[in-house]
């Protein structure tokens, strides 16, 4: 029945050539089907399940913290941000997300890692990071094709960051400390060039500049030969905080300080070394020698030597001079007895343990739980003479407890009721892991302790506060990264020959655009329709140049408004989305169409049959266009049933190549970006496609609602959730599609606030 409902709603059935029903009949049929489906008993055989809408509460299986949640929770609990969970086995995902209760399993390997991590975290919190021996790491920027320029560009990135001779990479620094970043240079600078600069950028901020003067360094080459940079390795020494950071090393003002023959800005004032003397081979006649010498001199006057200075790779050494001792943040979170100087009284252990356990288990703790832990403190203290050692072991125990590792939602006391309201603490947990992928903070926990979340106005105020908190970035990274599938960007490898422009900096910049864009929609509570079409985005210089948007300089991301001719605006035109929905060597209208159907329309196509013939890739662009190749899909009726929905959407985006750059031709063929959908609507180009999608805002709202619900609830949706989805879409549409109305709709729904019972 679900299938029938889908096909009728999408206008797929009846097929275009058959007589069509009236719109009101379609509406009647679809709403009847929806209602019937909601009434049907659940897949999970639970005879206690009631069919009334008020208890449309699902049941999510005990959810263990996934890797991201573990890292964030540990950071918020004891102020340790070492990302130890990055070493845990990868979390399996279900329904497109990696936080699904049923799918997250716990293997002995993971348990071993928990035990080791718990020890490290607790000891770091109490004693500070253990001494880490400095290591040397080589950071390459991946494959790059570097084409040296022979003439200076007039309009180029003066910071050097967007040029292909810079190196960009991310690195997770294990601890606050001093690090040495050694830039290994390569390439040549013309003879007679002045000294140049080398700049180090961290997270988009200029940190240090070094002067490099190859002319003054010992050279074994002859005068007049280019300055060879290979082997020159300037070092930056910087203090870097712990965590993952974006490092960039670039040569600013690349085309300045060059010899005058370049005709570049600010030419070198140094004397031009003479062209090297001609050295004749021994067996020539004097006449031949003179001829060759004249040729050589002439060549010297005409040649413009290449300026191919570049940073080849980086080496990173450290940490040096890292802070010893526990972080202030950790101390403040742990020593609630306020004795930060270490002179603890007898009651401190109990106070500290009780508060930590309360926060870690996300609920008040019983005295027997506290006593278990304080006995541990005492016995360790007896053995080692150190209160801090005892505390560290108690924290380790807390981090291993199932009450910490799992988000517990208890079976209701009475098993006759079909569902129950979640407790205040269970609700607070759901809320914080939904919006922050982390534990409730003190304010939220206090509200739960006092039972205040039962009041709708308090709940709403908390949600709004949490959305504005910087921790809501987790919603962007984790929900956004998986909904839009832009997490895939980490591992795409576009063909270097076809797309020489694709380098690490572009990859990082594309990813960041989508993140900043999404975060702005949350922060400014904008309409979710901005995802489909917006007249702005957030760009840095690299991306602006890539999109051919003028007047954007510098590596910071800032809001940029688009003219209609820019072809940009909304997710469908963002390089990140366009890249992950392409192959390494070409675009795929099918992949893109599928992406749109799955993630914006909520009508995913079924998988293809296994023996489907493939495209003749060699022909594309040469003897036939992509479009002609895909005609096969429309010719075969079986193929057409799905492809008539997918392909046109992808055609609408064909002007964007496999890394998201605008193009008007694909090889020899001018791109035809028009498309016709099964319901008869036709459009042209990305603007047209976006307009079509905007005609049905509720379809998008519903799609986004479903995905957010799966993420928030940690389970797939069941027929009983359909009414909830409908209600939420109604309220979103009544609120101008503002993002917060979507979140509020979910948080206030029975699906989020209640839990279905089961027979014990």
């Amino acid at each position: 029945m679900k299938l029938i409902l889908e096909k009728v709603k999408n206008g797929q059935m009846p097929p275009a050539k058959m007589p069509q029903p009236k719109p009101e009949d379609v509406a009647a049929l679809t709403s009847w089907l929806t209602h019937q489906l909601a009434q049907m008993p659940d897949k999970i055989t639970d005879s206690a399940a009631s069919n009334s809408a008020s208890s449309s509460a699902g049941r999510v299986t005990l959810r263990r913290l996934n890797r991201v949640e573990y890292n964030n929770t540990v950071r918020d609990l004891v102020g340790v941000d070492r990302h130890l969970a990055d070493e845990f086995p990868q979390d399996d995902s279900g329904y497109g997300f990696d936080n699904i209760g049923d799918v997250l399993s716990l293997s002995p390997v993971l348990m071993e890692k928990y035990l080791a991590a718990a020890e490290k975290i607790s000891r770091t919190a109490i004693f500070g990071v253990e001494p880490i021996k400095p290591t040397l790491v080589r950071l390459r920027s991946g494959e790059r094709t570097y084409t040296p320029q022979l003439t200076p560009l007039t309009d180029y990135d003066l910071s050097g960051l967007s040029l292909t001779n810079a190196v960009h990479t991310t690195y997770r620094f294990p601890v606050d400390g001093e690090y040495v970043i050694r830039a290994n240079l390569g390439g040549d600078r013309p003879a007679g060039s002045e000294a140049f600069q080398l700049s180090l950028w961290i997270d988009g901020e200029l940190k240090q500049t070094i002067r490099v003067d190859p002319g003054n360094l010992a050279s074994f080459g002859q005068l007049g030969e280019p300055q060879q940079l290979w082997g020159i390795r300037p070092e930056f020494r910087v203090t870097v905080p712990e965590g993952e950071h974006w490092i960039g090393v670039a040569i600013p003002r690349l085309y300045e300080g060059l010899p005058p023959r370049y005709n570049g800005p600010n030419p070198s004032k140094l004397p031009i070394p003479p062209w090297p003397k001609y050295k004749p081979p021994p067996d020539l006649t004097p006449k031949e020698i003179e001829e060759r010498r004249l040729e050589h001199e002439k060549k010297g006057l005409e040649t413009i030597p290449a300026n191919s200075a570049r940073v080849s790779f980086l080496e990173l050494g450290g940490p040096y001079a890292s802070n010893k001792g526990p972080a202030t943040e950790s101390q403040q979170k742990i020593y609630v007895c306020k004795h930060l100087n270490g002179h603890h009284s007898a009651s401190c252990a109990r106070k500290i343990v009780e508060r930590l356990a309360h926060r870690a288990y996300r609920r008040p703790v019983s005295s027997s739980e506290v006593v278990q832990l304080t006995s541990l403190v005492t016995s360790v203290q007896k053995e080692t003479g150190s209160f801090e050692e005892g505390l560290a072991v108690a924290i380790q125990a807390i981090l291993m407890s199932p009450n910490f590792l799992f988000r517990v939602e208890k079976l209701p006391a009475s098993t006759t009721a079909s569902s129950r309201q979640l407790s205040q603490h269970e609700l607070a947990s759901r809320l914080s892991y939904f919006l922050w992928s982390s534990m409730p903070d003190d304010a939220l926990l206090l509200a739960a302790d006092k039972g205040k979340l039962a009041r709708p106005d308090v709940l709403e105020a908390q949600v709004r506060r949490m959305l504005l908190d910087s921790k809501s970035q987790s919603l962007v990274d984790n929900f956004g990264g998986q909904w839009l599938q832009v997490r895939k960007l980490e591992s795409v490898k576009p063909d270097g020959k076809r797309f020489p422009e694709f380098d690490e900096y572009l990859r990082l910049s594309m990813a960041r655009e989508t993140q900043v864009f999404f975060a702005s929609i949350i922060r400014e509570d904008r309409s979710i329709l901005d995802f489909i079409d917006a007249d702005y985005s957030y760009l840095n210089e690299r991306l602006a140049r890539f999109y051919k948007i003028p007047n954007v300089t510098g590596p910071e991301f800032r809001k940029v408004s688009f003219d209609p001719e820019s072809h940009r605006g909304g997710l469908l035109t963002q390089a990140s989305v366009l890249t992950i929905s392409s192959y390494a060597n070409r675009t795929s209208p099918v992949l893109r169409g599928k992406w749109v159907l799955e993630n914006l329309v909520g009508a995913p196509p079924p998988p293809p049959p296994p023996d489907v013939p493939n495209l003749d890739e060699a022909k594309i662009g040469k003897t036939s266009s992509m479009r002609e190749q895909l005609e096969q899909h429309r010719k075969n009726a079986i193929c057409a049933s799905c492809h008539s929905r997918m392909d046109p959407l992808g055609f609408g985006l064909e002007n964007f190549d496999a890394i998201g750059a605008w193009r008007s031709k694909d090889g020899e063929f001018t791109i035809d970006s028009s498309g016709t959908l099964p319901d008869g609507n036709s459009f042209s180009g990305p603007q047209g496609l976006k307009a079509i999608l905007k005609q049905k805002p509720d379809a998008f709202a519903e799609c986004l609602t479903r995905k957010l619900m799966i993420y928030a609830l940690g389970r797939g949706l069941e027929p009983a959730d359909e009414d909830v989805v409908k209600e939420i879409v109604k309220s979103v549409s009544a609120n101008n599609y503002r993002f917060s109305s979507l979140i509020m709709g979910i948080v206030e729904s029975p699906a989020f606030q209640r839990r279905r019972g089961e027979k014990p």
Partner: protein
Amino acid sequence: MIITRKRLPRRTFLRGMGTMMALPMLDAMVPAFGSSRDVDLKTPSRIAFAYVPNGIVMKDWTPKTTGSNYEFTRILKPLESFRDDLMVLSNLDSNTGNALGDGPGDHARAGASFLTGVHCRKTAGADIRGGVSVDQVAATKFTGVTRFNSIELGCEDSRTVGDCDSGYSCAYTNSLSWRTPQTPMPPEVNPRAVFERLFGTAEDLSLDPETRARRFRYRKSILDLVTRDTQSLVKTLGPGDRRKLDEYLFSVREVEQRIQSAEKDPRRPAPGIDKPSGIPFEFPQYVKLMCDLQVLAFQSDLTRVATLVIGREGSNRVYPEIGIDDPHHPLTHHRNNPEWIEKVTRINTLHVEMFAYLLKRLKSTPEGEGTLLDHSLLVYGSGIADGNNHTHEALPVLLAGRGGGVKPGKHMVATQGTPITNLYLSLLDRIGVHQDTLGDSTGRFEL
């Protein structure tokens, strides 16, 4: 390498907390890391499974004749020098990989059924259910005998986004090994992490013996404490949730065992190789490094059961090392395009070269009166035969080694309809684990 018939008493060795012992171990010490209750003085048999995805070009795989003296086909050529240690087994099926009414999803099913013989439940998330895999059945025999019941290694990271095959959860494609129908055993893909797990981290090794012992004790106390916590928690939860806590408790017990075994015999084997710094960039180096680690683990008897996922089912890896820039999976849907078939054949051959490397390492490791290969049983294969059509019958399967008295050196063809699980039962017999059935088995496959 001293080879004597006498069994050296363990006291001969320097006993102390944390002393290092150089490899390879004296075989007179066998079983050095085993439990003292293991009175089997014969060298222990190892069992391992290696998996390749997306099927194989069978016309270039299956030898034309049976018995001995068959000619090595193109894909099997890298194994020619191991003729006497190898068996090519044809015509084994994994019928549970078929749709059987569930529609598309052959890759998920192939991976989930290859070692289990069970038709996994089609779900994108709720109630995943596979089976118990043969390696885990073998692993239960060595509980408390070797430090690790089994190790799961992989050479491809799991997918981070989206569903993994037509409505099947990623749990099915990410793990080959399953401890229980609900608990997959995901492979470790970072060689550094594998190394640290087997041989210890830098921190472990830098601690003085007294502190290390104390830390072990604390870990045990903590595990006691959390076990009690769990038992009281379990009473307050419904049956669906209790299953998750069962996984938790099982894992706690496993880790407790490992700590106990480490305390009883605190010597740590010196690995003989440098700690890998991470995942090697080139595929052949990556796989070879994982093979090295597997050999080391067997050699120092840290475990006797291993699985190696050379490629995850549905793998889209590209192989620029052999000039192939097209992702693997789409290539295997070649629809008889000869260029594409050629590329797939080259990938298949590369994978076999990796297996040949593993065999070479095992064969060049002396042990007792033979080599480590003589005391091992290794299965290599895929849960899909024809990648183009997703067939699960007449799978490509190899058996290498002489563990448990197996006599290899021939090409055998199974009778029609023999499930691969029959082979597994026979292998389990050979290592001393006797089970009546496994998944869809119908009997034994006589070797």
